[in-house]
């Protein structure tokens, strides 16, 4: 037990040095990746075979890949895509999981039992298999989507991106659903819920505006921890060749390209180290922030 625990949430979070440092790092990474996007967008695709596999030089500070594309631009661009994919996937997971868990917990009884049994079943399925299934079935649908003019709604490389985000979100909502359901189950027995019912408020309003705000803490922590998990999952799929597809780039895809070029004769270290380092540091920082948030929240509850 620590004495003098600050009363406000921010006061407690600020004491978690590592988490604050990580948050600053993440904000910096996000800002740099996002603001450079207008430049990196085209530059990361510009090939120059004469310059292929150059180690870091003045004109290419982080070297070039096997097609002579600038690794600095590719890393910054890949960061933007990786991070936005992680955020999107986390948002999908939180949206599905919160809705599902809240309904199961509030309705309770047989509906709850059935809904949670389904979660158990999905949990037991191999995640990778599920991801591939979702990717294939969703991808085909999305590619066929057309505007009335006949133009595709999403270009092929963005279809892949959207599918990855939805698929990863679609397999990682289970944990949120369980957490939210458990909390709602205990919150709905709270006297303030009874008081809200005594005021004649409609059920959905009680659920969304009175019960869910009490869950903001755990949901934010989960969302923070879901981002690195989604980024990692996408990287893993890229290594297996079923992640986002070139010319799209993510840190995972860049690293896997680098690894593919590993050979006993020459070591193109920058192709592995640069995206690998960016990926690891960012994932680490996200996890530190998530842990810091969780600690700052649980202290308030006196745990």
């Amino acid at each position, binding site marked *: 037990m620590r004495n003098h625990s600050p009363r406000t949430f921010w006061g407690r979070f600020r004491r978690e040095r590592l988490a604050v440092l990580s948050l600053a790092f993440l904000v910096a990474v996000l800002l740099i990746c996002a603001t450079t996007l207008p430049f990196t967008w085209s530059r990361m695709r510009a090939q120059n075979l004469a310059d292929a596999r150059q180690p870091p030089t003045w004109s290419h500070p982080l070297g070039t890949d096997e097609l002579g594309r600038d690794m600095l631009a590719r890393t910054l661009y890949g960061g933007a895509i990786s991070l936005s994919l992680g955020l999107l996937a986390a948002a999908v997971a939180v949206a599905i999981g919160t809705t599902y868990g809240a309904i199961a917990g509030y309705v309770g009884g047989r509906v709850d039992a059935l809904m949670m049994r389904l979660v158990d079943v999905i949990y037991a399925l191999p995640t990778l298999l599920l991801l591939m299934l979702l990717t294939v079935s969703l991808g085909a649908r999305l590619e066929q989507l057309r505007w009335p003019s006949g133009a595709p709604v999403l270009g092929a490389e963005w279809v892949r991106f959207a599918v990855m985000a939805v698929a990863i979100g679609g397999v990682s909502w289970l944990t949120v659903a369980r957490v939210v359901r458990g909390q709602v189950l205990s919150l709905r027995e*709270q*006297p303030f819920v*009874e*008081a809200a019912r005594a*005021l*004649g*408020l*409609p059920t959905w309003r009680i659920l969304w*505006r*009175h019960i869910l705000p009490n869950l903001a803490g755990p949901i934010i922590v989960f969302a923070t921890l879901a981002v690195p998990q989604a980024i990692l999952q996408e990287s893993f799929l890229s290594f297996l060749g079923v992640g986002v597809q070139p010319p799209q780039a993510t840190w995972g895809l860049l690293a896997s390209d680098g690894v593919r070029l590993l050979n006993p004769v020459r070591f193109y270290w920058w192709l592995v180290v640069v995206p690998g380092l960016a990926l690891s540091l960012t994932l680490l920082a996200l996890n530190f922030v998530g842990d810091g948030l969780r600690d700052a929240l649980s202290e308030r509850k006196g745990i």
Partner: protein
Amino acid sequence: MLLTIENLRTVIAATGVDGDGPAAVVDGVSLSLAAGGTAALVGESGSGKTLTALSIMRLLPESARLASGRVIFEGRDLVTATEAELRRIRGVRAAMIFQEPMTSLNPVLTVGFQIAEPLRVHRGMSRPAARREAIELLRRVGIPAPQRRVDAHPHELSGGMRQRAMIAMALACRPALLVADEPTTALDATVQAQIMALLGELRRQTGLALLLITHDLRLVARVADDVHIMYAGRIVESGPVAEVLGAPRHPYTAALLRTLPGWGGDAARGNAPLGEPRRARLPVIPGEPAHAHRRPGGCAFHPRCEVGKDDARCRAEVPPVERRGARSCACFKELSSERVGALV
């Protein structure tokens, strides 16, 4: 009559362990309350007061079920009302406040938001209009600096303030009936008196009827018109406060009165000797309160009854409710005034 309850029976599902069947925790309760009146429901803890209130509001927990009876409120039977009809009655025509002011407010929402909720839902008020009304309500329930307090979270308020805020929430849409379940039990004596004064004032201003649940007989003597004494799920005695507390007919009522130190005959005139304000005492009557799942046969009170302990009839038969004028009593050995004198 604003509210008439007839033969209300509420049962709790079997508790399993002893294989008990469903137990009637509210067993044939009848009472009525006129518009603007105050009725008190009194009894030891566990006697079924809260479940009676929740039955009236149709807010019973899943483990309880309203088995039979009628709850006629403003001419409508709430027992047969649909959930949608009930939502238009709760918070609009009939409101309820609870014993725990600490936990009956949502900890993460501001007091103003919570008071504005019924106004926005039932009155369709806009956010700013509801906020203005919430500030006005906070002022009316005696919360200082309402413009500031409207944005406070419950943990920033004292227990008494929270109960005031609860009252503001419950009365936001100006209901005709307020069911108050031990509204002051969790508060200290001075605050208790303030809250009761506030309820009395609001009653006079708005013509609100109050069903007050309490185990504080001194409070009953001061504020209620009628009193209903509850024992083990049944109403054993009821009538005008001055008559019932001045000359109790049921031995349980008499026993309750005896647990109040300094209770004298002037209770009959409705002004109990108050002395220093002190926390309401839980009445202590020798013997164990009857549990709904193990109610003694015959009159439920007989094992603790001075008069009927050894009476064959009291042990075997459930005494029916006998009406006489404004009063009613369920006892084979009704006390006459002389006997009360001897007992008190």
